[in-house]
Each structure stands twice: as structure tokens, then as C-alpha cells.
């Protein structure tokens, strides 16, 4: 078994004295793990940093084997190390992908959304893109929110809330007395102004569904990296 692809490195674990087990997110093979021989060496270890874009060749005798990667660096993304917010963003993206995606299941649309976001981290102004990326992640996992029309009236205007149970939008007028039990839908997610307050509301919205769908009833909490990113994004 053999294939070659490009992808973003999600995680690295040392394996024995000289090897490493890495997880790479590729377009055609999804989240895929494999051994890198010499991956803990002085020459290769600096290249194997989470977020790095790699050209990877995977080979194994049988498809169900862990297999081995040979890697070539394409882009390091090390520029984020000096920027605490960008670094927190990179950590959150890698941790959520490593946590949420089933192994070896391709998600080309999510890959296409992830790589430009990783590239934007160094340049700044990516906060709302990150929020939309979390919505895309939920969608790819089969828990997409329906923010097109009000679940009660079908109206496409005046949407202000999301039902925490169904993930469907609810209009301002239709919410009535139930408003305080609903999650706020920030205007920035439906074509309105992208404001800091809305970003916090949006992260609470995606956080609610990520938490509900990924934590398996609280057994495995969401990655700490996401909580740190949210804290930094909302810090005054």
C-alpha cells in the first residue's frame, strides 16, 4: 500500500529513541497517522512541528497497518510562534482536528477551508474566519447548523437565535419568551457586521455544539487549546 499527498501536521509523538508517530491532515486521506523513522533526530524533529505543511509519502504492507511516512517540508508556519494569538489559533485548529476527525476519512472541503486559515494566522484578522471554520467542522462531522431560515416561521429575515437542541435558527419575533433559553446568533455569521461581542456569542454557539457532539457526555472534554484561544480572543 502506498500513496503520496500534501497535508498539515496535526501532532507528533516520540516513538522510541529516534522515531516519531505523526498525524497529518490531508485532502484525500483525511487524518492519517504513521511512523517517521528518524523523526526524533536533530535534522528532522525541527521540521515536524504542528501546523507545518508537508509532502508525505505513506507506505505499509497492509492497509490496516500503521505504516511509515517519508516527509518533505513545504512550509513551516513557524512565524506564528512569536504571536500568542496566532499560536493559540494554530493549537486550537490542530487539537480540534486531531480530536474530532475520524482516522482515514477524507474531508476535502474541510481541508480546503483549513489550509487558507492556517496561512492567514500570521497575517492577523482571521478571528471570524476561525469561527466560520468551526461551523464548517461541525458540518463535516454531520452536526451542521441550519442558519438559513427560522425554524418556526420559515422567515429568512430577522434571525437572532439558534436552538441549542436542534441547531436551527430562530427569528427575533418568533423567539418570544423562549429567547433567554436560546443561543444568540451573531449578525456576523449571517452577513451582518463582524463585531467583537458577536465573536464571543459565535464561539459560545459553536462551543455548545462542539461540546455536545465531541465530548461524549463529558468523558473527554474539548481540547484545552480551544479554551485558551477563546480566552485570548475575548480578552479586553
Amino acid at each position, binding site marked *: 500500500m502506498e500513496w503520496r499527498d500534501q497535508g498539515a501536521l496535526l501532532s507528533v*509523538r516520540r516513538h522510541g529513541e529516534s522515531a516519531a508517530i505523526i498525524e497529518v491532515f490531508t485532502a484525500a486521506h483525511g487524518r492519517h497517522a504513521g511512523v517517521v523513522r528518524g523523526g526524533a533526530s536533530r535534522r528532522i524533529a525541527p521540521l515536524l*512541528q504542528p501546523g507545518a505543511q508537508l509532502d508525505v509519502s505513506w507506505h505499509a504492507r497492509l492497509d490496516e497497518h500503521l505504516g511509515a511516512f517519508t516527509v518533505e517540508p513545504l512550509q513551516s508556519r*513557524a*512565524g506564528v510562534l512569536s504571536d500568542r494569538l496566532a*499560536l*493559540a489559533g494554530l*493549537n486550537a485548529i490542530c487539537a480540534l482536528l486531531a480530536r474530532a476527525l475520524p482516522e482515514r476519512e477524507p474531508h476535502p472541503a474541510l481541508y480546503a477551508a483549513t489550509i487558507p486559515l492556517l496561512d492567514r494566522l500570521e497575517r492577523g484578522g482571521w478571528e471570524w474566519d476561525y469561527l466560520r471554520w468551526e461551523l464548517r467542522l461541525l458540518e463535516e462531522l454531520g452536526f451542521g447548523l441550519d442558519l438559513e431560515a427560522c425554524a418556526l416561521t420559515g422567515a429568512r429575515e430577522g434571525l437572532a437565535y439558534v436552538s441549542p437542541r436542534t441547531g436551527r435558527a430562530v427569528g427575533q419575533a418568533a423567539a418570544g419568551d423562549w429567547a433567554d433559553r436560546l443561543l444568540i446568533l451573531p449578525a456576523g455569521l449571517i452577513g451582518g457586521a463582524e463585531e467583537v461581542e458577536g465573536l464571543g456569542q459565535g464561539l459560545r454557539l459553536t462551543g455548545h455544539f462542539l461540546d455536545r457532539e465531541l465530548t461524549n457526555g463529558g468523558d473527554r472534554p474539548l481540547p484545552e487549546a480551544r479554551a*485558551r484561544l477563546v480566552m485570548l480572543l475575548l480578552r479586553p
Partner: protein
Amino acid sequence: MADAPRDIERLIELMARLPGLGPRSARRAVLHMLKKREAVMAPLAQALAQVALSAKDCSICGNISTSDPCPICTDPRRATGEICVVETVSDLWAMERGQSYRGRYHVLGGTLSALDAVGPDDLRIPALIDRVGKEGTTEVILALNATVDGATTAHYIADALDPTGVTVTSLAQGVPIGGELDYLDDGTIGAALKARRRV
């Protein structure tokens, strides 16, 4: 090949667990020691037994020494206003080999890692914050690895120390001594360019 007697086999097995040694190299090392019992093996055994009894973790900085506090923490010639934060004891020893730094240290015992669920309380970060408050520290130098986990830990510590008002600095990143630009990765070149200085 005939097996070595049981005690020697056990010694080979134990040696083979050491980093950098496998069963073959452990066997070679043990054979070498057996050939030079008086000159190598006996002093080594004595030193091992002695260090096993006397080695202690310094309760102040986390260094490994034979006394607690360690000689670095009790040295009156060392600057008390500076604390150099390192990831492991081997990093502390590397800094000491350089002989450029004459302050004190704080060993974290690792870095924050979302993947391995290592949080601030699993490291000696609360002890560092406590030290900074008690010792009248003026500068904390973060000498952590230039990796994603190292940088994440550095930012976390800088945020945690912010209320104390202490100056937090980190080691420079860039072209190593004797390094050639052609062999550097783009991240290192970018960091070096950011940290350029007037010649």
C-alpha cells in the same frame, strides 16, 4: 553464542534500558567493564551507589543535585533578581556549560501539551509564580525550546506573570553559530530576520 551467567545477563538487560543503548551495545559495554573490572567497573559501581543515595531534587529550582537546596540556589555570587526558566534539568546543565548566565534557574519539568493533557498544574508553573513574588525577581528569562509546545508554554508563563510586573524575556532565535543560511528552514530565517540588529 553461549549465554552469560545470570547476574551478568541481568546487568546487560538493565544497561540495555538506558537511552542510546540497545542489547548489543549494552553487551559490549558490560564486556568492556568486565575486562577492566578494577579500573572501570568498581569505580562505576561505587559512583552509581553513591549518587543513588545522595541525589536530590532541589526544592527551590527543581535541579538535580546532591544537596537541597542545590549549589546554584545557595551560591551568594549568583544574581537573585534573574530567574532563567528551562524545560528540563538537561537544559539547565546545557545553560551552565555555556558559562554565560550567572543568575538562578527554574526547571518546569516539561511543557504544556494539549495532546498529552499536560496542564499548568502538571508543571512547576505555580511554584515559579510563587518564587517571583517572594524573591523580588526583576527579570524572568524564558529559555524554552523553539517548538510549538515551548512557545505555547512561554506565552502562558508571560501571561501568568503579567500581574507581578516582572520583566519577561526569551532567548533570541535565529542563525546558529557556524550555521549556513542555505541549510536553514524558512521559519528560522524568518525569525532571524525579525531579530536582526545593527552591525
